[in-house]
């Protein structure tokens, strides 16, 4: 069974648990959680991940800054990133995708929609 490593970056424990709950339905999934962008960068420096799922509004370092930093880091720039956020306006979506995110999912999330996006990215890898 192939192993899939996910990094879930969320300041809300409720959302972290909900996203992890959904991702656990993918066989071979291993989930690491981070509270904010800085925490995520620390975890990226020690582990390899297949997909990063990040919120935008977080303390210390927000999700957009994290996307930008990952895309400018030669070691991690190819890791697919999914933004999961309450910022659902079209301009927010465009901004997130322009920074290099692969997908943009507005909250509240539907498990089926999230799994479709994640499986689509894993299938294309």
């Amino acid at each position, binding site marked *: 069974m192939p192993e899939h490593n996910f990094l879930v970056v969320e300041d809300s424990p409720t959302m972290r648990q909900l996203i992890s709950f959904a991702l656990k339905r993918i066989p071979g999934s291993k989930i690491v959680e981070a509270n904010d962008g800085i925490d995520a960068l620390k975890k990226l420096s020690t582990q390899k991940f297949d997909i990063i799922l990040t919120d935008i509004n977080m303390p210390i370092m927000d999700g957009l800054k994290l996307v930008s930093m990952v895309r400018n880091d030669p070691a991690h720039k190819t890791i697919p990133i999914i933004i999961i956020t309450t910022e*659902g306006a079209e301009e927010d979506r465009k901004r997130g995708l322009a920074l290099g995110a692969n997908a943009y999912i*507005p909250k*509240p999330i539907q498990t089926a929609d999230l799994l479709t996006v994640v499986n689509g990215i894993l299938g294309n890898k």
Partner: protein
Amino acid sequence: MEKEPAPISKKVEEFLQVFKKGEEFTQELLKENEKLRYRVAQLEEVTKFSDREGTYKVHSMEERIKFLEDENRSLIERYRVVEEENKDFANRYIEVESENNNLANLYVASYQLHSTLDFNESLKIILEIVMNLIGAEEFSIMMLDEKTNELTIVAQEGMGPEARASVKLGEGTIGNAARSGESFYREGDPTDLVGVDYLHPLVVIPLKIKDHVIGVIVIYKLLVQKQEFSNVDYELFSMLAGHAATALFSSKLYSQSERKLTTIQSFLDLLKEK
């Protein structure tokens, strides 16, 4: 010199020989005729058998075609039934998936609500649930002060300064929902808003322990991508009405008891010193 005529006996002998040959030829012809008759009879027999066999084969093939046609019809019917079953299973799968999603939301929400005995953390978790799981943009949590009969905002998200910090029990939509203990859902499209009206919220959920109201969750505006409330939202409202109330009440009691414990401990320490 003139040739002498053959004697009669010689002529007779010649005639007899010709006759004998004729007899032999006739015998051969008869034999040949017999053989041919036998052959004709044989062929007639074969032809008769072939006709019988041909008729049997055609009949057999017709029966086979009929059987195969029946089987084909039966398979088409079975295929139709299986296709219907398949559609039914696909619909059931979608329903189960949706139910699974709803249960996951409810499980996570109630798990988080009861994961702490810290009052402020409980408030933060309720805010997270209302924002991330329901999709509200502007909302507040109000607690009831039983001495003054006033509902006061203890936590809020996205609300403007014009929002009232407190409401009397029985006053307006919020006060009435708190007094009656009945949830309020504004009629019509929840996204049908020009601006936020803090006097007319979208939803008011009384937080109740049994029939005792301790506060309310008030939602004024939904996130731009949230078009309508789904079944799970109503389930979440119902879950919040009970579980958020007990989480807030128990964490408040725990904080009070912790404070009292600290005070008593300080007294005890003072007494020991004396």
